């Protein structure tokens, strides 16, 4: 009786904490890494005072945010104002339930994993919209409007990219998708090669979906101050921050898992040691993609709003639709080897 309780309730809870806690720490380190990388690109030092190499700067910032007061604007919708950061954060964390870290390490090996991910990432926008509306501020409302239109547009492109992947892999289960990319040719067996245009579209849509530069018109410091979270302070602001960075790491994970073979090695299996599948490979790929986000931010100026919409609807979605057909042909005529048999 007690045994069953432990297995059905306590163990899943423990596993969940084992995923969420490292995620939060990863977000803190990611913020530090962002400031360092952008600092180097600007020929600055970046944070270097708190702790070795400034590593503790992010943690110091978290403590500072947590002890600050959360200010409620006049005539704001109180309930929704406090609820919005949570609505933004919960889907960002819930999506991690189906992310596989290695062959066995996954919280829920759900069959419809990819669909679940789509559902969770599409819910995050409510946090932004509600924050913008309940703040009772013009700037915040404008930011929310921009964000809503942008996220919906890029979700379509993203969905089409995922359709291409699942056509080739023949499964919605993320572990199976990684297994479908295994083969003797190492990195040339992964889906990025047959799905190259879609891979590029997916990653750019991921940047747009997380409202990151050069698609960060929802915040647009120079036009609408800070967009949807302009009125938020203290821990409520920290929650938005946490959700945004957790989503960025999620997109990096998905790009690695769906297109770059997850924990599979880039070397052929015949190479000793380096050829073996290992979660370390996944960590390296995620690190590369996560750093790309920062590189984009330091390099590109912000897109104009109509150009963002044009890119999403008139470029990415047509590419996605065409490549779904191409992927179907690849699968039908057997141009792509799926799984270890190839």
């Amino acid at each position, binding site marked *: *009786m007690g045994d*069953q*309780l432990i297995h*059905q*309730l306590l163990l899943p809870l423990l596993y969940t904490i084992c995923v969420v806690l490292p995620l939060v720490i990863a977000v803190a380190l990611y913020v530090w890494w962002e400031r360092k990388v952008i600092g180097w690109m600007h020929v600055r030092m970046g944070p270097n005072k708190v702790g070795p190499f400034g590593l503790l700067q992010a943690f110091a910032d978290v403590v500072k945010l947590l002890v600050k007061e959360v200010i409620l604007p006049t005539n704001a919708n109180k309930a*929704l104002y406090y609820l919005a950061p949570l609505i933004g954060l919960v889907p960002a964390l819930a999506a991690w339930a189906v992310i596989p870290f290695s062959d066995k390490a996954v919280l829920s090996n759900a*069959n*419809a994993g990819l*669909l*679940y991910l*789509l*559902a969770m990432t*599409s*819910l995050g*926008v*409510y946090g932004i*919209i*509600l924050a913008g*509306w309940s703040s009772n501020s013009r700037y915040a*409302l404008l930011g*929310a*409007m921009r964000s*809503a*239109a942008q*996220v*919906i547009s890029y*979700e379509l492109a993203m*969905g089409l990219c995922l359709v291409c992947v699942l056509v080739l892999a023949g499964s*919605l289960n993320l572990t199976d998708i990684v297994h479908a990319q295994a083969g003797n040719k190492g990195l040339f067996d992964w889906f990025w090669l047959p799905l190259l245009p879609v891979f590029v579209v997916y990653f750019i849509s991921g940047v747009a979906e997380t409202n990151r530069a050069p698609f960060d018109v929802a915040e647009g410091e120079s036009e609408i101050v800070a967009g949807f979270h302009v009125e938020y302070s203290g821990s409520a602001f920290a929650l938005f921050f946490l959700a945004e960075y957790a989503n960025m790491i999620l997109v990096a994970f998905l790009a690695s898992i769906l297109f770059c073979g997850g924990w599979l090695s880039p070397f052929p299996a015949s190479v000793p040691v380096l050829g073996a599948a290992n979660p370390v490979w996944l960590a390296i790929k995620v690190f590369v993609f996560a750093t790309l986000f920062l590189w984009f931010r330091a390099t590109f100026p912000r897109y104009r709003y*109509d*150009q963002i919409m*044009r890119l999403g609807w008139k470029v990415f979605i047509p590419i996605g639709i065409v490549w779904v057909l191409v992927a179907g042909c690849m699968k039908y005529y057997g141009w792509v080897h799926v799984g270890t048999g190839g």
Partner: protein
Amino acid sequence: MIDTSLFQLVCFYAFAAVTVVAALSVITLRNSVHAVLALVLTFFSTACIWMLAEAEFLAIALIVVYVGAVMVLFLFVVMMLDIDQEKIREGFVKYLPVGLVVAVVMLVEMLGLIGVRVMHAQTMGENPATAAGMSNTAWLGMALYSQYLLPFEIAALILTVGVIAAVALTLRQRTGARKQHASEQVAVRAKDRVRIIKMAAERPVETPPAAPVQESKP
């Protein structure tokens, strides 16, 4: 201790209660943004109920399509509207009889549906997906793209026609509206916009003004 079927039953009643309360608040809340959010909650808890009934694909599709996209656009529009709450409530008594008739007709139809379902309860059989040993999504995909391909494609075509109609409605010629043509903007070269002129860094010293100065001296 944790009986699965009992747990499922408790979950069902919990989700159903949330659905009913949320659906009621959609039509009773005064603030229209709150009403839209209640509708989102209704969809969400309905998806949870479908999940309990092992209709995973439908449940997640409901969240992706309705909660994730349609309701976001709804919220988008409702936030922009400037609605006078009192004006909307004015017509309440006037439309009450019509509303009651619609409600009664719907109630009768639903009861009829439940009656038919009860009569067919024996013939429904078990879940075809579990019988075929496939996941719900895989079985639905098989059925839609093989057995029901033609109806499925026709439905898709009708939806496409709807999309084209909606786009055509917004296409109208406005006079005096300025447009940006991205292809022209991209095709612009520097020499179309900027003219580079070579000129000396300093203006050459002009000699003539020297003469008048001398004249005014005496």
